[in-house]
């Protein structure tokens, strides 16, 4: 188990690079870069891929 105050619970590590996980995104609200709209990741979208990038250059 790893995490930050109980938010994260890692489960079975697969033989591939992906792992099954159980991470609650409650409380993470981020602005859309193009229009400033706040997106609450804990409240939706119902099904999504998060593609989290490195630096821009």
């Amino acid at each position, binding site marked *: 188990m790893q995490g930050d105050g109980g938010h994260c619970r890692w489960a079975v590590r697969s033989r591939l*690079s*992906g792992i*099954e*996980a*159980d991470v609650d995104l409650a409380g993470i609200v981020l602005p859309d*870069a193009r229009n400033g709209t706040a997106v609450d990741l804990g409240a939706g979208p119902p099904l999504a*891929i998060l593609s*989290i990038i490195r630096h821009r250059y």
Partner: protein
Amino acid sequence: MREQRNRLEELGAVAVAVGFSPTTALAELAEHLAWPWPFLSDVDRVLYERLGLARARLRDVYAPATLRIYAEAARRGEVVQRPVEDSRQLGGDAVVRSGEVVRLWRPSSPDDRPPVHEMLAAVAMAATDRAG
């Protein structure tokens, strides 16, 4: 890309991009990529921390193969820009269902990202679980 986008939408899913740059910079990148879904700015790296996305070792970021690419670009006369942000911060990918990450890819090096078909399969599984 179009085929993968269609498959994602058939599953009722979207792909949300997240970066740690300021909104203005990410907006330019989103436009450049013609990203059709939200492109979020996480300057405090809250999501990165929540998902345990690590910072790479310097020797992984500036590996010999990478330095060779930069050197060749410089020899061709191309301007090699200094990084303006934390070049050691790693990204990652995740499948989210109703506010909960159910599958997560945490790379150990900058060039280690999952194949798209693997992520689409994970989305399909999450969609099935949701329906069940």
